[in-house]
């Protein structure tokens, strides 16, 4: 046994040797492999998202026939048109109302679902998620038929309780409400399921501790549940704000912008102007208006997500 009880005196001179050793080469090769593995992802992100986003800005500065640079002309023309301002109003009105409704109904349902015995939850959850599962364009088609002016099944039900016939898609305010209804119908299950997951992640002991401290059920909600869920609520709301603001399917199927272009949102109006009327630069300009709001939401989502990650570490 080479029992050298001697002390190994440290010489703290961390001289890294000049020769590039193979471990380093191994590490370098590892990052090469890693880069190759992420290359397809980069192609998608850069080629199909980042580049088009920048390209959209370029497109929006061209004249109608895309032959020459037109500066901010497209934006100026948009600002002068009433239709555009209607679109801007309708987009914001639609997104904010729909998200608020989805968030509150979703929260309520998640809470109710959380309160019933565990073994029943699966069944209810399964039923309540159905609207989210059907492709939106197809379920909206069903709604369209339910709103049918001459044979509306909803109006028939309303007639049973003696409510006069509603011109669902005929009048622009009713059409706006109809669009919000459909969006809430589709999107609420998502909120519900997210909040349910969040509710389940709150440790039961916290409620027990709060109950022993004398908190009423409302106080438990206010001082335990909401703070614990604050982050996930903000993530879900902001994320939904983005998606709802950029919604296209419902407006396209339900009203196609009508009546009199009063239910257009940015996405459907951009589509109408850019693709259907063939004015690509103007359409690009319209769609770009979604960008600032989306960027703000994205910023806050990212902040919440990073904060959440930090908490979990």
């Amino acid at each position: 046994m080479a029992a050298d009880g001697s002390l190994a005196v440290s010489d703290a001179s961390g001289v890294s040797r000049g020769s590039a050793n193979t471990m380093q080469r191994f590490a370098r090769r590892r990052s090469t492999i890693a880069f190759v593995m992420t290359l397809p992802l980069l192609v998608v992100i850069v080629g199909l998202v980042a580049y088009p986003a920048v390209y959209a800005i370029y497109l929006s500065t061209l004249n109608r026939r895309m032959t020459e640079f037109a500066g901010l002309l497209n934006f100026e023309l948009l600002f002068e048109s009433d239709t555009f301002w209607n679109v801007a109003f309708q987009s914001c009105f639609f997104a904010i109302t729909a998200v608020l409704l989805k968030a509150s109904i979703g929260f309520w349902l998640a809470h109710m679902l959380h309160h019933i015995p565990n073994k029943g939850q699966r069944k209810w959850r399964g039923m309540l998620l159905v609207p989210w599962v059907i492709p939106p364009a197809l379920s909206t088609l069903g709604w369209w038929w339910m709103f049918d002016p001459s044979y509306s099944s909803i109006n028939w039900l309303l007639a049973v309780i003696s409510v006069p016939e509603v011109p669902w898609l005929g009048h622009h305010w009713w059409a706006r409400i109809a669009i919000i209804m459909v969006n809430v119908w589709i999107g609420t299950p998502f909120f519900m399921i997210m909040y349910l997951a969040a509710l389940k992640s709150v440790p039961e002991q916290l409620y027990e501790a709060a109950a022993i401290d004398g908190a009423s059920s409302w106080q438990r909600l206010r001082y335990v549940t909401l703070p614990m869920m604050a982050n996930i609520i903000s993530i879900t709301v902001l994320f939904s704000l983005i998606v709802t603001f950029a919604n296209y399917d419902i407006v396209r199927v339900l009203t196609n912008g009508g009546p009199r272009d009063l239910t257009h949102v940015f996405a459907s109006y951009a589509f109408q102007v850019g693709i259907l009327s063939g004015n690509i630069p103007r359409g690009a300009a319209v769609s770009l208006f979604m960008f600032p709001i989306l960027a703000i939401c994205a910023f806050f989502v990212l902040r919440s997500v990073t904060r959440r990650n930090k908490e979990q570490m």
Partner: protein
Amino acid sequence: MSATAAEPGAPGIYHKAGSLSRERRWALWTAYASLTVAAIIFLAPPFYMLITSFKTSAEVAGMTGNPWLVRDPTLENYWAILANPMFARFMLNSIIITACVVALTMVISILAAFALARMRFFGSQVLATGVFLTYLVPDTLLFIPLYQIVGGLGLLNSIWGLILVYPTLTVPFCTWIMIGYFASIPKELDEAALIDGATWPQMLLKIFIPVALPGIIAATIFAFTVSWAAFVYPTAFVTTPDQMPLTIGVVSQLVRADTFAWGQIMAGALMAALPPVIIYAFLMDYYIAGLTAGATKG
């Protein structure tokens, strides 16, 4: 103890216990009532679609009586839609597109997520954030420039053009949740594999993919449902029925064909919606895991 909190004159502790259980019963009753109302509203539209799909054209055209009832149920709408070569074409297109996009998405996102979760390299952190940001960019912001780009490649009005652009919908989210799943695998597991003699590809194939299988299933389901339901891109890029997937096909072509063919339209829409619903019915837990993974894992 609780007697002091009870209302004056209440017979002490027993009364309190009774009120507690009554409170709980009330809460339960409210819960069931809310859920029942919600379930009725949530299930009414698909139910009405189903009812309509069983109605004869004559009954739909009649427009009288209770619309929620069907007088003489028929399957003729289903036979008609199944015999319609256009519908078969939509279905085939949807299947081709979805299969390609799902395969493409999973390969891209598993490879990238493995690299991003485990092989730290220059800029990997920035890229991971970039993936998340990309996920937040909606398709309606991109379809006009993509229209130009796809057009430039000569892929407008072709399912291949759709296969090219659909990954923008699926890849960021799938990569994001796969990073989460891979990151949750303990680091010692790959060190053990490294010492056991595994190379990087072996580690991915024999350790990471099997261990993260639930995550991969969740991501696959997500990619499937998203590309099956995609609407903006096919609406923008495809104009002839022979290249249309189901969503836009049913919405544009069937509706255009005959304004009174509501039974057929609903039958078509329901059948088009069937694959995601079936997957949901059988793999609900994975479906929900994928849905909530973005926020709970990330």
